[in-house]
Each structure stands twice: as C-alpha cells, then as structure tokens.
C-alpha cells in the first residue's frame, strides 16, 4: 500500500497534477505532517493512523492548510488523506477556512485493525483512491457501558471524569474544527479561570456543544487528553443525536449546510468568518 501511495504521489508531482504533496513523513522513527515539494523526498512519505494532517495552529487559531493557502493561493496541494482527514477538509471548506478547489485528495482507506484502533465509524474517504472500504466500528463498548448506566450513575461517572481535567486545552487544540478566534473556553464569564479542576460541567461542555454538529469523529481529542477522559464517547453520542435529529453528518459533503447554521425559514445563516481564504 505504502509503495502505491508513494508511486501515485510521484506521478501527481511529475505530471503537474499538483504542485506539492501534503502527507506524513517518517524520520528516525518519528512521524509528523510534512509538505513534500520534490519527488526525490517521497522515500520518507509514510501512511499512519498515528498522526492527522489538518491541525489548527496556535496562537493564530488558523488551520495549517489555511495558512498554506494564504501564503500561496494558487498552489495546488495534493493531500494524502484518510477518511477523517478528508472529513476535516470538507468541514473546513464548508466553514470558509480553506479552498477545496486547490486541493486534490488522495484518499487512502484504513485497514480493519486501524479502524478498530481508532474506534472509527467510517474508516474511508469519499475520494477513495487506494485501499478497500472496510466496515466501520458500530459497537463501542464505552458507549454501551455508559448507556447501560442509570442517570445518577452517569452523572457520577462524568463528574469523576471531568474532575480529572488539568485544563491543558489539548482537546480543543488538536481539534481541526476548533478555530474560533474568541474561544469561549478561555473566558471567565463561562468558566472560572485559573483554577483546577476547571468548572464542572461548563468548561468542557462549552466545547461539547459548540463542536457537536461539526465533530468528524476523528478521536484526536481523546488521544490528546493527558488524564484519559473518554471524550470520543461523548462525541459519538452527540454525533448520534445530530444524525437522529437532523439527518446530518459532518464532513461528508461540502455543499451541505450545517443544521445549526440554518434558520427556520430555510435561508442559511452565514457563519462569521474571521479568517481563512
């Protein structure tokens, strides 16, 4: 599979289908995003579920792809994307953060094991170029265990989990969908600042609700949590609610408006776009 990805990336660069390839690079055993500008570097291109591509940079609070497109609006960027990377791109485009017209997606499917590892419900991109579609993980033991608890038990469970929070903001920082310039989590009027644990439930719940309909289910927030709060569990339930209530799923179609940005008379509201291209 990796060889196929490298070959295709090489062909795209050589055939000028794209100007650069945005993918993962392996060096000394460590894997991180990298912009390949020359075909000779592609020997270090790798595929892994260890790292995503589209992170929001801080303190600018802009996606790395937005920053790239701002610098070079005409550069065509080839992106080696897993399902979740593609959903992030679509959702970012929908919200005015990036220009999908200048992006060519090389969709790579995840294996069954990789899907299990990420507890991923949809382990393949729409623009599938390489790999086979495998069935997503529909059963999640954490979700089931939670749903089997009584309401008071659930409250105790979440109180305990949230009380572990050390306010690193890591869940927000790794989220490709968290790019608000005036993040409410930082504001004293919503949750007391300068204190551990942060105010329960406000501090984390602000984000749960704000991201509820844009969450692409990549699980990066849970993986970034230093105290192992089961954040993917709550987002799976929120995603389920959004699907049930609005028949909507984030990250599938850039042309589909978010239900929470739609008014009752069906004229779509404009999201305040303070950045992006």
């Amino acid at each position, binding site marked *: 599979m990796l060889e196929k990805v490298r070959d295709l990336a090489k062909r795209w660069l050589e055939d000028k289908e794209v100007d*650069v390839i*945005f993918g993962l*690079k392996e060096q*000394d*055993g*460590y*894997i*991180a*995003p*990298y*912009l390949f*500008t020359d075909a000779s570097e592609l020997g270090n291109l790798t595929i892994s579920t*260890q*790292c995503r591509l589209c*992170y*929001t*940079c*801080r*303190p*600018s609070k802009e996606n*790395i792809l937005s*920053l*790239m497109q701002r*610098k*070079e609006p005409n*550069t065509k960027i080839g992106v080696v994307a897993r399902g979740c990377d593609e959903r992030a791109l679509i959702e970012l485009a929908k919200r005015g953060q990036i220009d999908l017209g200048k992006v060519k997606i090389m969709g790579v499917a995840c294996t069954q094991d990789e899907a299990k590892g990420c507890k991923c419900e949809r382990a393949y991109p729409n623009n599938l170029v390489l790999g086979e579609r495998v069935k997503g993980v529909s059963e999640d033991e954490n979700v089931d265990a939670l749903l089997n608890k009584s309401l008071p038990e659930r409250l105790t469970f979440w109180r305990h989990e949230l*009380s*572990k929070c*050390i*306010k*690193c*903001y*890591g869940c927000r*920082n*790794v989220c490709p969908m968290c790019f608000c310039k005036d993040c409410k989590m*930082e504001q004293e009027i919503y949750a007391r*600042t*300068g204190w*551990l*644990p942060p105010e329960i439930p406000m501090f984390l719940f602000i984000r749960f609700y704000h991201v509820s309909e844009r969450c692409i289910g990549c699980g990066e927030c849970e*993986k*970034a*949590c*230093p*105290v*192992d709060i089961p954040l993917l569990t709550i987002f799976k339930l929120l995603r389920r609610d959004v699907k049930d209530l609005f028949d909507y799923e984030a990250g599938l179609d850039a042309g589909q408006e978010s239900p929470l940005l739609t008014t009752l008379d069906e004229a779509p509201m404009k999201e305040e776009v303070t950045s992006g291209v």
Partner: protein
Amino acid sequence: MEYKNVLTTCPYCGAGCNFYLQVLDGELVGILPCKSHPVSQGKLCIKGWNAGEFVTSDERLTKPLIRRNGSFTEASWQEVLDTIAKKVKEYKESYGPDSISVLSSAKCTNEENYLMMKFARAVLGTNNVDHCARLCHASTVVGLVQSFGSGAMTNSIRELEDAGCILVIGSNTAEQHPLIARYILRAKEKGAKLIVVDPRAITLTQFADHYLRLRPGTDVAVFNGLMNVILGEGLEDKEFINERTEGFEELKETVKRYTPERVEEITGISKDKLIAAARAYAKAERASIIYSMGITQHTTGVDNVSSSANLAMLTGNVGKTSTGINPLRGQNNVQGACDMGALPNVYSGYQNVIDEKAREKFGNAWKVKLPEKPGLTVVEMMNEAARGNIKAMYIMGENPMISDPDISHVKEGLKNLEFLVVQDIFLTETAQLADVVLPAASYAEKEGTFTSTERLVQMVRKAIEPPGESRSDWQIICDLAKVIGSKEFEYKSPAEIMDEIASLTPSYGGISYDRLRKGGLAWPCLSKEHPGTPYLYKEKFTRANDRGKLFGIEFKEPAELPDDEYPFILSTGRIIFHFHTGTMTRKTGLLNREVATGYVEISPKDAERLALANREFVSVQTRRGQIEIKALITERVSEGVIFIPFHFAECAANVLTNPALDPVAKIPEYKVCAAKIEKIKEIPR
C-alpha cells in the same frame, strides 16, 4: 513553500515531554504533540501546548547591550566580548580567580552547562559555579547520595502506572508535573492506593485514599511515624534490610520514639490516618514514593530526603520496577545541569573536585591546572557579593532577582558587584541590573540535549533561526573563551561537545547524537552498546560497600516559627499556569488569561478573623520584607498557613522568604517562614 515539524523536548518542567514545532517557511506557527514519545504519548500540559509563544515574543533580546552612563546601549559582539575579556583578566590578576563567580542554567542544554563549568574551571580558574538546582533539589543530591550512592530519581515515570501504592509527599504533581500525574491517575484506575502528604489540599488530594495534612516542616516526624507503625506491626522487609542495607539498629532506636500519638502532636495528622497510610504503603507489592520541593526546600531538606529513602528501604521498595524514590525535578534540564557538574564541588558525572585523580583527569583533558578548593553555592555567592568578596558575576539563563530567597538581599549583592554579565533571551529583572547583556537563542533555535527527571537524555532540535544577532549559549561561551585566549573551545557542533562529555563522564559514556536521534537514553549508559538504565540499584547500591544506608534521623523544627508578631506560616510554590520567574509564561496570552498576577491563599477562618473579602488587597510581611497582594480565600490551606506562588515580580514571594540554609545542602527554607497579614486601604497601582 516549506512546511516541516521538528521534534524537540519541552523547555518547562522535568517530565521531558516531547513535541513537534510546526515551521512554515522558517516561521514557528504552532506545536503538535508526539504520540510515539514514551512519556508524553501525544499529550501535553497547558504550558507545553503554549511553549512556542514566548519564542516569537517581540520582547526577545536581539543585540548585545552594554551599560553606558547608567543606561543600556546596543553594542557589537566584538565590543562586548572584548570588554568582558578585559574585565576577567583584571579581576583575576588583582583579586584572584575566586573573585569571579558563574551561575549556569537548568534551562540550557547539557552541552552548554558542561561548557559553562569548563569555562569557570579551566578559563576563569575558579570552582565558583552553581545554578538553581541549589534552590530546588540540592538536598536530593546530598540525601540520596548518602542513602543510595546516586542523587537521582531511581525509577522511570511510566513505571508509576503499575505501582500498588503511590505516596506523594511535597509534590503538587498535577500542577507542577502534569504529565507525571497522568501515570498516578492511571495507577489509581488500575487499583493502586494513593497517599498524599501535603499541608495544602492540592489537586491530587481529591483522588487520594489517604490524605495526611501535616503542619509545614514536620516531614521527618511523618516518615518516622510511618516507620514506627511498620516496625510495630512487623511489616518491614527483613530480607532486604539484612542483605542490602546497613544502619538498621540506629534507625530502629530513633523511630521507636515516634509513636503515632507523638507524631499526631508534632504534625497534626491523626494517628488513625497515619496508621492506615503506613499499612497501605507497607502492604503493597510495589510502592513508589514521589516527592518534590515540599520536602527539599527546608533547613532539614537532607533529613527529609534521607527519611524517604529510609522508608523505601525498610519495606524493600527499591531496586525493582514501579517502586523507588522519585524526586520530580522542576526544570527541563536541572538533572542535566547537575550531571554536567555545574556545581561548585563536582565535575560532570559527580566526580569530586577535591579528588586528585578526578582533577588530574579533567586537567589533562582540558590542558590546564584546575583549582582544588570547592566553590561557593548560589546563596553564598550573593552573600559574598554583598560583602565585596565577589567582584564579578556571569549569569547564564537564571533570574535570581525573582527566584532566590530574600530578594532585597540578592539585589544588594548584585548591585554591589563591580561587573555583572547576564546572558538571557529576555531582559529579565536580573538582566536589568547588568553591565553587559548577551542575547541568547531559545530552545527552539538551537541543538542540544536535556536530561529529564527520570535521567532520560533527549534531543533538542533547531527549528528556526535565532532572532537578530542572538546566538546559542554554547556559541557565546566558546566565543568568549576564545577571546580570553583559550584554545580548548573549538567545537563545530553540540554533537562534538557531547562526544567530549561522553569521554569524561562514565554515566554518559555510551551517549551520542547518532543514538539519541532515534530516542532518549536513561543514564547510566556506560558504552555504545549499553541500552540505558530505566531503574537503578537492581543488584546493588552505588555506595562504597554496595549497601544502602539507613539513618536514625530526629525531627527538627523549621528555622523560623510563627510567634505573636508573625503568627502565620508562609509557604511558597508554583501553579500550573505559570513557570518559575514568569520570564516565559508571562509572555504567553492564554496563561496570563488564566492567572494574570499573584495572590495569597488564606483559609476562610483566618480571613474572617481579619475581616477580609476575597480578592481584597493585603500587605504580607516577614522579617525580610513586605509585599502587597490580593487575597484568595480558600480551604486549600489550613488555618494559620498562607501560600503565595512565587512567579510574579510585582508581588514577589521571595521578598518574604527566609534564606536560612540546610547545613549540608545549602538549600534555603522556601517552604516555611513566619509572616503577618494586614488589610490595606489603598489598592496598589
């Protein structure tokens, strides 16, 4: 367009987390966590996540500064280096080399600390080199060396996860070492018992099975009490005591006198809680002790540390995984700065300057005759500066004007110097007093290594260019040594410096950049084939006779106790949102948003007695000085105790602290002094 991610080691605490610096066209645009790193595992704390912001601050120093007619003017590197060289020669000739002293830096790399101590000894000709380890874990180095043979964390961080019991004493782990607290919480989830001993109800206490709230400064009595219960109930590990230790009879005699009743009287911890905690610790298959400055920063710092070692050895909890004594070190490279010999009595690898063989070995390598007399420690340097015996000081990456006890006295000392050179990334409170300021590169702008609290040596990689004319500390030291006339500072890269370190330092003998690029190595790492040592003392201790030493240690009161005039006990420390003297964190937006300035924690009962409202400004006074600061009324402190974080220059806790020293380790007693509080009418500023 160029976009890359450069893996590096966090510049804040000693946990040694790694992350990537995101670089877009040469500009630092963000930070990404690294999931394959053994400690951080793709997670970071709030400081780590924001460790890029101060790097690009427009307050960074970009040009050398020289004081002319009382104010700073920009100067060329040539001019400032010539000026320093001339002064160094003058003082050496007129007053002797010991009239100069050097402060090295726990924020700088191993290579830079090695060079700084080499510069002090081989170029200046003095052993007057020390750094802030004196102020945080000097008692660890002394205490653990006398108990075990080596002054460092015995086990590795991740092992904590599999401990059956974890005793945390004097460490606010969740705030000061958040990514280490991660492994305490994971151990809890797996069923471990957690004992927290602390005068403040710190964040971890909410998860503790046993919370022992002691009167500040009574740690030895707590340890003796725990051991009294353990011996009384026959829970000690007799085989371990017989085969691996000495001094048991002495310990037994002393501990006998610390009955739970007496310990309750001294410490305020109820005897039932003490007994329950002692059982939990002793009965666990594997028990770990974690401590930090809560026990080291006392006039009895060494006693406290050795007492913790007593408890571990008494129960056989040393020399196997998930056990041991785990001092958590506060700075990214305070372990490394000590390992490199940035201390007045040892060369790298703790080779003693009074040992003729060691002196000869380093003297031969550096082609110079080395001074024999051990040098001055941090607080002693300031005292001698105030007395006029130290004429010149060279400070690299330290800010004693905030970090040292009794700041008024520190200022007096620094101002009394004839010549002060400060090398830093910002114009700190200390740099403002300097005659020459040298602009240095930050961690993101240079290559090198840091050694974390678990003895793990890790790479620091250059991501971006240093701003303006600033240079890496290692380059500045080499440049200066060359101008003074030394031929022993011809290094092309930090990798070459590490090769020299490895050749002279047995515990770093097998360490090289080729190996470190693939991942960290824990010392001792004796040869190129040696895999490193995650936990110490598996077969034997490293004292002369291979045995660990148990000491009978009597409880002693702190140097200054509350009285009628100063009725409160003042304790100081850090908070999660800021770091040390605030030089880096106070230039970071989100951190300032969380906590903008200092405060004094006071209990609700004391606040009521003083008729204080929350956030009201008060005056806090001790025999050293007075500050105005806002009150924070909280149950986190008990009656009679107040707490002030020391990060904030405008209400600096260290104006108040007591510079009384531990007699051996010379660490000041930051954790206990007597204070009074008064309401003030006018709000300052």
